[in-house]
């Protein structure tokens, strides 16, 4: 059965991405770079995703497409296994950058009670 995003999924995703140009989803092994004016995004993803990453990756992409965003490039990043490694190796993030972004993202993240238990 195909995953069909709910209203909550779409609202949460839109609220998550609308504030910034980039969005990393560690659980999906992926980072996105957006051009919001054109409703476009580029995908940077770990080349060999494990099952958990795959389970998150596909719905996240579907959510973005359902919001009307077009994926204009997908870069499979070899030699990395996590989003943190991906950001360091392919986007030049330092450990400090990553920690700062993580804190900012936790502060800005829209609330969704479905994630409270995690």
């Amino acid at each position: 059965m195909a995953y069909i995003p709910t209203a909550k999924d779409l609202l949460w995703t839109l609220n998550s991405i609308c504030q910034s140009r980039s969005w990393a989803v560690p659980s999906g092994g992926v980072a996105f770079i957006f051009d919001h004016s054109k409703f476009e995004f580029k995908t940077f993803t770990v080349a060999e995703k494990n099952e958990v990453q795959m389970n998150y990756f596909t719905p996240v992409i579907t959510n973005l497409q359902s919001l009307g965003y077009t994926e204009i490039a997908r870069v499979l990043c070899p030699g990395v296994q996590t989003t943190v490694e991906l950001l360091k190796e392919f986007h030049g993030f330092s450990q400090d950058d990553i920690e700062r972004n993580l804190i900012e993202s936790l502060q800005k993240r829209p609330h969704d009670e479905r994630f409270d238990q995690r």
Partner: protein
Amino acid sequence: MERLADFLSSLGVEYDGRNFSSLDWVENEETCNLLHQKAFEIIEAINRQKEESKTDRIGDFRSTFALAIACSHFLGKGHWEIKMILAGEAHSSYVSNLVKTGDIDVFFDHQCRKAHLDTSLEMHYLMFRNLIAQEGMTGEAISDLFMKHIVQTSNAIQELMRFLELCGRQEHPMNFASDELQGKMAFDYYVSLIQAVRGFMLQFSCVQPVIQVEHAQRFFEMAGPLITNAIELMAQFRDGASTSYIMFQTVMAQFGTFFVKYTEHEIPPASNFDQCNRATIAFDDLEPIETYCTLFAHVLRLMLIRDHEGLQGHLTQAIQDALDALEASDRSRHYDVYSNIIHQLINDEEVNMILLSDELSITW
């Protein structure tokens, strides 16, 4: 095999994703039979695929959706199954295709979602009504069943609210192909939400004589905040169009009269009467379909006067206003129901709340 789009076109069924260019074909019995037959063929094909665990999807999801909506036009109330199956399949196919090809059509996506929610509301109500119509159903059992029913209804109302919020947002919107399509989609959700809230209150009035006190209390604990939140949201998305304004003022009037009637809320009758006036007589030069939108508020206004001695002085004028509205109204949709109820109220006859709920709680 003939393409579905060509088949529909050959019968004069032209759908632009929201409306049919004409509804003349509904009057043609042979056309309706052919559409019905085609719908069954597609449903059988879907079932076969499911039995064989194939994941192939129907190819032309737009035409399948058009067929679903066409069938709902001529089958009418009580026949929700075809629309539910075909519109659901069209939507699943759209999402599958979106994932595979990236071919985006946010407007189509949401027309499917709205159709699903509207049909779910209809389905839940009809199933509830069919169950309580069974012989031997006690008041207690009806009351229990109603509580289950309203959970489903309130879930659908919350989903409609989220979609209205999502489609109507101006800052960081979704990618509709144009502002016009975004506006149309937000308006469609707005109307569905108003209809769902109207139905929610009408359905309670229908079962109120048999509902248990603790169930009624639970209903109002749930319905009060839900309806208030829905009205606050609608207020944000109410545009300048007459239909949008009339529907909003009507749901406000219904909310006021409903809570005063069934709870200990103290809103002066004159205040509710003013609200009914805002939804009925505050307009000049309405189009027939806009006048049609005022008919429900005329019903509320007459009921309010009947229930409150202090408003009796307005009765003659309210009767005249209601009759004028009936005269000027479009005669489609539930016109006959409104006409019957208004005349029952004028003749001081008892209004059948079950009939009111059955006829007016699903479509406006």
